[in-house]
């Protein structure tokens, strides 16, 4: 049992399966959610899996450097800025319209 597990440590492909799966789940949430805050949470999932991908490639393709980790830190900083402005917009929209349902936000359609 221990030998079997020790011989099956996760390879690059396994890590990529994980991050792709997380990204697809985020995409599903992005497409199905109606609440704007829920959509932003799905976007966070996708950003997180992208950062994970950077670190995975860093670890398996160039372990002596830290470029992938630095890119992941930039992704986290960009996600923080995105959340700050996005949430401010949702709070403002709720104040004006009383809803955060994205289906109701069609003012520019007319």
């Amino acid at each position, binding site marked *: 049992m221990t030998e079997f597990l*020790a011989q099956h440590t996760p390879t690059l492909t396994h890590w990529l399966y*994980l991050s792709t799966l*997380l990204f697809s789940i985020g995409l599903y*949430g992005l497409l*199905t*959610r109606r609440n704007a805050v829920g959509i932003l949470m799905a976007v966070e999932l996708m950003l997180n899996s992208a950062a994970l991908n950077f670190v995975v490639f860093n670890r398996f393709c160039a372990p002596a*450097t830290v470029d992938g980790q630095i890119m992941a830190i930039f992704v986290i900083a960009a996600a923080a800025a995105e959340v700050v402005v996005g*949430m401010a917009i949702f709070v403002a929209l709720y104040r004006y319209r009383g*809803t*955060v349902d994205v289906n109701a936000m069609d003012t520019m359609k007319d």
Partner: protein
Amino acid sequence: MIASASYTVIFYLLAALAVLLSLAVVNAWKLLRAAIALMGVLSMSAGLYVMLDASFLAGVQVLVYVGGIVVLIVFAVMLTRSAELLQDNPAPLRKILGAIASLAFLAATVGVFRSSPFLLSAEKAPLRDNTTLIGEKLLDYGAGGYVLPFEIISLLLLIAIIGGIVVARKTEPQGQPFTTGGDEAGEAEFRPPFTQEEHEDELELVEK
């Protein structure tokens, strides 16, 4: 032997928890539950970063993502009363179409990375401290350094502060907090919280 066996076990444990919790993030009816599940996914990712020899990044993940971004999302859920006003249960057709699109994306990406060769490196992770390496690389202004993106991040954060304050503050009804000390000279003086008339107008606006 034991070390690599436990590495495998922990990887599959964290991966399974991350996938289950992210399914909860996109499917939970109540948004607060989705936010807590998101916190779980991000903590699991921090564990995965540790397994990838990126311990500083795991710290940043916990500090910024779990401790900051999720807190702000919870604030926004409370402020917009999303959990109460909009029980987010999408129509079946929408669910099916979304599932088809994301499964198609999954299949395409898996097909691409299974059929492409990667230049794997057998090198070990550097023995030097991970945080020191990141610090040196981040502030390096020579070739391969990241000083320009680093300075641009500070500008991005400045823009986020200004944008967030302007957008979130503008919508306050007059006399509510944070309208003091504004642009006009007279705005800083005291006002009563709000008149009855203003309050009714606000209520009408919300009902619309």
